[in-house]
């Protein structure tokens, strides 16, 4: 990409790593005057890190940022604002008890005789909103307005505060309905025509095609590419987001075929029209002993919701679940431990590790929970179990007494796997087990899943990376819009499954 005077922002060769995770690796990004530039990628792709660097919240390890052809180092959010970079976050952080006018002009109210000139303030606020093609009663309290209006007030306020030239909208439409989204898009188009450079972060690909001029795709902290929106099809976009890694995994394919032979006819877990209002629509599903079933689909397609239903975090509101032929009545994690169902959750930090506790305590936690309050594992037993799994899974830690938060992401994931393997489960559900993990560890975890299947355990493998799902699963279930839409054998061609994930729109 040649440098043009149209570029208002150019980020070159940005690297950023956090302990144990390479968040961004050699990422380039350019933003032009008067464009809406969509930034897409699955969770953990590095979108938010890139934005944090641009807004001065984080500093890049290496890399150059130029704004208006001048090299800058954005040391703080305040400095970012001085440079004309303004951000409106997903969660509106305004004061719901105040009026729209107060919210827009808070801290810079027009004064008269030492007190606020309310009349002037309301007029000024109305002017600001009119300039954005929005006509509102500015004396209403913000809390009584729709989220879209709040969002617009937030944008108006952001534009009012700084002489913004670069506007970052972080998931602005996630809680808006179609009509509200259209309103917001009108505003964005108007701003764009006035020369504003807008970065638009979203998970909704339809919206990307509707409003964006260009698109930048990130995956696993790496730049996949920047494209003009007209040059890329929906299917291409999804392919690039979900991606394929180039590493060869011949061995794994062999292992998969090998373990596939052992699948017995016995159904271990069965869902009959099981569903939960607002989470996932009723679905049928059967898992056999020794089988790995992959769940593919985009973020928010209902994959995690199925996992949490099976594990008993949520109760189904319709249909039934059964394991080993017995219908489940007691839907709880503790009940699941007793039934031999285990879940390594998607959100490793918030729902997986217990950071301050040691590796040993983290490993025995679920087993101990299954035993109850009073059947206490002696510290000798605890060390034995912990050491066994540290060795088995090759967990890199100085000792079993290390707080788990000091381990790298991949090793933390292994600790959680160890926690569940220690309970000797019949069904192991792994939700995004390889997110943010280096390639070597990824392969180890995938192999582990396959070898567990060979031992006769059932596994459910959930991942945003289709390649990975294909590599490990004997059968693949595709989710879209909180619905189970298709089921394929593990031999199906990638493109066919990709079509199912993308839906009819492709």
């Amino acid at each position, binding site marked *: 990409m040649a440098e043009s005077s149209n570029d208002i922002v150019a980020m070159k060769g940005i690297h950023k790593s956090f*302990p144990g995770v390479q968040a961004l690796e050699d990422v380039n990004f350019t933003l032009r005057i008067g464009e809406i530039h969509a930034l897409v990628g699955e969770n953990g792709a590095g979108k938010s890190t890139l934005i944090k660097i641009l807004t001065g919240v984080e500093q890049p390890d290496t890399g150059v940022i130029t704004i208006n052809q001048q090299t800058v180092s954005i040391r703080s959010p305040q400095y970012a604002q001085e440079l004309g970079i303004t951000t409106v976050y997903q969660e509106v952080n305004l004061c719901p008890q105040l009026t729209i006018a107060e919210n827009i002009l808070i801290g810079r109210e027009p004064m008269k005789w030492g007190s606020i000139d309310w009349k002037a303030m309301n007029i000024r606020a109305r002017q600001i909103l009119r300039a954005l093609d929005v006509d509102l009663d500015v004396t209403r309290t913000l809390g009584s307005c729709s989220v879209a209006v709040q969002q617009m007030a937030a944008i108006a306020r952001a534009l009012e505060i700084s002489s913004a030239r670069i506007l970052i909208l972080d998931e602005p439409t996630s809680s808006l309905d179609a009509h509200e989204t259209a309103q917001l898009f009108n505003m964005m188009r108007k701003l764009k025509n006035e020369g504003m450079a807008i970065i638009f972060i979203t998970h909704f690909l339809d919206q990307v095609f509707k409003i964006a001029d260009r698109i930048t795709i990130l995956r696993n902290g790496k730049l996949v590419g920047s494209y003009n929106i007209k040059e890329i099809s929906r299917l291409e976009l999804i392919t690039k987001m979900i991606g394929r890694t180039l590493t060869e995994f011949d061995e794994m394919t062999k292992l998969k075929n090998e373990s596939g032979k052992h699948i017995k006819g016995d159904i271990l877990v069965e869902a009959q029209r099981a569903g939960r209002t607002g989470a996932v629509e009723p679905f049928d599903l059967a898992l056999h002993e020794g089988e790995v079933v992959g769940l593919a689909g985009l973020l928010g397609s209902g994959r995690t919701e199925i996992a949490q239903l099976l594990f008993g975090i949520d109760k189904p509101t319709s249909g039934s679940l059964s394991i080993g032929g017995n219908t489940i009545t007691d839907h709880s994690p503790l009940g699941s431990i007793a039934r031999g169902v285990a879940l390594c959750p998607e959100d490793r930090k918030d729902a997986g590790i217990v950071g301050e506790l040691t590796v040993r305590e983290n490993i025995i*936690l679920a087993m101990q929970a299954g035993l109850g309050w009073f059947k206490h594992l002696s510290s000798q037993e605890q060390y034995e179990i912990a050491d066994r799994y540290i060795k088995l899974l090759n967990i890199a830690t100085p000792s079993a007494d290390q707080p788990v938060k000091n381990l*790298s992401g991949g090793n933390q994931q292994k600790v959680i796997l160890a926690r569940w393997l220690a309970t000797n489960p019949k069904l192991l559900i792994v939700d995004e087990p390889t997110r943010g993990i280096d390639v070597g560890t990824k392969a180890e975890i995938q192999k582990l899943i396959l070898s567990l299947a060979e031992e006769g355990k059932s596994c459910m493998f959930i991942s945003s990376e289709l390649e990975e799902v294909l590599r490990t699963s004997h059968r693949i279930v595709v989710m879209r819009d909180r619905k189970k839409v298709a089921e394929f054998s593990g031999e199906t061609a990638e493109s066919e499954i990709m079509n199912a994930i993308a839906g009819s729109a492709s």
Partner: protein
Amino acid sequence: MRQSKPSFSFNWRKTAESKLFFPIVALALILLFDLIIIPNFFRISFQQGHLYGNLIDILRNSTPVIALSIGMTLVIATGGVDLSVGAIMAIVSSVAALMMNPFVLGTQLQGIVNDPTYSYSPFWLVLVVPVIVATICGLWNGLLVSYGKIQPMVATLILMISGRGIALLITNSQRIVIVYEPFTYIGQGWLILPFSLYIVAALFALTWLITRRTSIGLFIESVGVNARSSLFSGIDEKKIKLFAYAFCGFCAGIAGLIGTSYISTSDATNVGLNLELDTILAVVIGGTLLGTGGRFSLMGSVIGALVMQAVSTSMYAIGVSANSLLAVKGVVVILIILLYSQQVQDFIRKITGQTRLKETKS
């Protein structure tokens, strides 16, 4: 894998990183102050088979706060706090006194209460019933916090405010003088050392066994560090919280019996007054994190309680009046809490000549 080198010499870094290091330093500093300023502060005399002295006084006067801080430790470790323990002590006081002498509610037989061998209810009931009532109070707090999902501070504030009112209602707003000797022995008796010390020692041992010889301690810490991860690991987070608050109530029951016995009256307005705050500070000094919870140290809390009492006793000993005690105590507590700030701790580690252990990266 790296192994830390075995070291047989005195290891400053390890000492400085131990959980008990700062509580002990805090206590040592106060005692050092006493050693320099107050002559004979450390003298302990032996009279009629019993030990007396300033240090013994500190131990004895701190027993209610020790008992409270043992229970409070568990609550704070779950990420909560219990403001109602002082009020629960008042309720206990009223219940116990009323059981020994219910006649204040009527008009008859005022004379009989002067008999130090007389109690209306059997002694064991006088001990058990108030403690059960206190445990129920704790259970109530726990229900509000875990199942009602009310913020701990708000949930326990309810009982903190209403508890003393309830205590007054129980005795019909009367102060009941307690003369029954077996009961007064709890807080005033001596068996070489003050008898109440043995009670809190037993409570400490019981709590240690319950938390460290079962999985309850681990579950409490796990819930405090990360409630969601705990839930996903099959730990019933609500039951754990319920247990912690109920146990805290139980400890407040014991503290209430000691406190009431010590002053020989049921004084609903004064028994345990402001002790919840001393207790919270004791636990914080002991190294359990207020607000975030997680790792807890029972021994740390006990030392914290001793620190709080040592401050009061020392201030009295140098002649600070009761009126200005609270203000002076505030200053001392600030100084102690400063010890816990990361900056000061880093500074201390620096002067102990050791850099902090680098976080292991793998």
